[in-house]
């Protein structure tokens, strides 16, 4: 049984001159302890998918479809039940730790708030636990960190604090939205390693949003590639890397410079990303796809499952051989 099940999530945002669709039917299952990467360009709907799980979508947004966590429909919970669910089962790690912490409160307040105020735990036990966790995420001087204000700590330190706070409540599902993008390049991999380690240690499932396919491959069990508010392909990192079935996945892989293969020019995906609300009839990727056929332009394309993976492309069978990457580096994980 899956821990989280997204069933045909659609999200429309009211806009002058008609609603705009941001998600056009996202369906996904996450098993307990499983890490799934949501990968795509900005505007593809990956962050918005996370927010529908936490129910923090923008005000006025209309969401349809079901979000089942352990069989409970998150979308239909009342305020009190939603609050309990957020306090107990979910934890969020956002992009910018500096914005996530109240600038005028000490780090200690932020850490214990999620345990004391949200879950009603005693301050003493809460403080002991977050102290242990701060040490675990690699903070040397725990006392000083607890007594600091956010502006006195570096971005990398703050994100460790956020990770500690997220892990503290032993949630069943971690929602991570580009947790390393706002950090210095030198601290990115360190923070990512700590997050990965903590997740595995506590056996938490994770939805990991990133635009970086390689990074997702390193820490996730499966990866869902999003384009224009839809999942276009799901598979394990190994499957996607060696034999992508969707042209967009292939182009996404090619557009990343590889350390092993030297290419004279870096291939780029032609055209510009299409927003979900701009998509007409037919395949959303049709406007940029080098392998386009006439039938791609009419009728919605279904997500077809098979071989333990899924793809949303009319021509995936015909192109199977053509999309295989010969120079694909070995991927472990």
């Amino acid at each position, binding site marked *: 049984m899956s821990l989280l099940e997204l069933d045909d999530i659609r999200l429309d945002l009211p806009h002058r001159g008609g609603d705009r669709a941001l998600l056009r039917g996202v369906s996904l299952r996450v098993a307990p302890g499983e890490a799934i990467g949501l990968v795509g360009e900005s505007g593809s709907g990956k962050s918005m998918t996370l927010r529908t799980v*936490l129910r*923090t979508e923008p005000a006025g947004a209309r969401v349809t479809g079901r979000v089942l966590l352990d069989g409970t429909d998150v979308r239909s919970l009342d305020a009190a039940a939603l*609050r*309990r*669910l*957020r*306090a*107990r089962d*979910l*934890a*969020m790690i*956002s992009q*910018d730790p500096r*914005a*996530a*912490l*109240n*600038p*005028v*409160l000490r780090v200690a*307040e932020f850490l214990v*708030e*999620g345990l004391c*105020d*949200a*879950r009603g735990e005693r301050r003493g036990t809460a403080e002991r636990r977050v102290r242990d966790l701060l040490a675990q995420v690699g903070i040397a001087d725990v006392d000083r960190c607890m007594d600091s*204000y956010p*502006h006195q700590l570096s971005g990398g330190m703050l994100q460790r604090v956020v990770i500690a*706070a997220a892990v503290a409540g032993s949630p069943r599902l971690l929602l991570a939205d580009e947790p390393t993008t706002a950090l210095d390049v030198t601290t990115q991999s360190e923070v990512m390693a700590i997050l990965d380690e903590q997740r595995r240690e506590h056996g938490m499932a994770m939805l990991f949003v990133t635009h970086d396919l390689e990074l997702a491959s390193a820490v996730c069990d499966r990866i869902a590639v999003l384009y224009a508010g839809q999942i276009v392909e799901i598979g394990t990192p190994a499957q996607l890397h060696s034999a992508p079935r969707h042209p967009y996945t292939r182009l996404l892989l090619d557009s990343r410079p590889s350390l092993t293969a030297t290419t004279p020019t870096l291939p780029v995906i032609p055209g510009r990303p299409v927003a979900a609300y701009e998509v007409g009839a037919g395949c959303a990727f049709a406007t940029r796809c080098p392998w386009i056929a006439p039938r791609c332009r009419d009728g919605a394309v279904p997500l077809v499952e098979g071989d333990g993976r899924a793809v949303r492309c009319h021509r995936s069978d015909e192109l199977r051989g053509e999309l295989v990457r010969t120079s694909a580096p070995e991927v472990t994980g």
Partner: protein
Amino acid sequence: MLRFVIRRLGALAATLLVSSFIIYAAMYAAPGSPESFLVRGRTVSPEVLASIRVQYGLDEPFLVRYWHWLTGVLSGDFGESLATRQDVASLLASRIPTTLGLTAYAALLIVVFGVVAGVVAGLRGGALDTAVLLGSSVGFAIPTFFAAVLLMSVFAVTLGWFPVFGAGAGLSGRLLHLTLPAVALALPAIAVVARITRTAVVEERDTEHVSVSLARGVPWRVVARRHIVRNAMLPVTTIVGVNVAALVAGAAVVEHAFTLDGIGSLLIDAVQQKDFAVVQAVALVLVAVFGVVNLVIDVLYAVIDPRVQLGGESA
């Protein structure tokens, strides 16, 4: 912190010194000499005029007179009123309690009603929000003196709930007499403070750390108190401070309207009578109080916002 306060006090002293010179020089330059004021149009012999000039030290050069005045002020001697021959220092002492009571009362009203209205409007939204927005637009446009006259007309003349004039005796009498003036004085500031508080609360409500706290399952009441209202109080402190500091001078209008015997009405009367000794003294006191209030606000701000680095002030 202590060093910051000491440095600011030093700056305030310097400002006061320069201000005192400007105030004294301005009164010196003003048309109408003190001796002609003293003789009040009577024809007096040159000998009498000369003796008056010596008596009041008017025969000395400007800088010497300024020096005498300044050293006097520093020892608590503000000179003598030209109009009433009263000692200015004791005149001030008898007038200050009324003004102090009036401004403190008004400041309390600003904090209680302005901030509370803004917080409630910002947190709740809806019809209440619209009401506060509308009320603050109108309140802002009502001049203090018109609010005074309006309140007097409704609550003192028509309804008879409050006395029209005077400062009253005893604590309850004083409060009763000062209520309408304090409301009139506070009204425009309440409007501004309510508006800005509301904006600050709405902005704070939309910040990421607030939605992060909510997404962690922290109850709304706690988030509203600890994150939204507390953080919104930073800009609100500044605006409340500016408005409370402005009461120092604004009180003059209300004291004049309600014929209260504060230092504001003393200033107005003195300007009209060209009683420059009193004008100088009141102006200096007002500048000093204004400076102290502003200093207190800055210190308060540094206390509530940990990001303010007082040590870096001099840079």
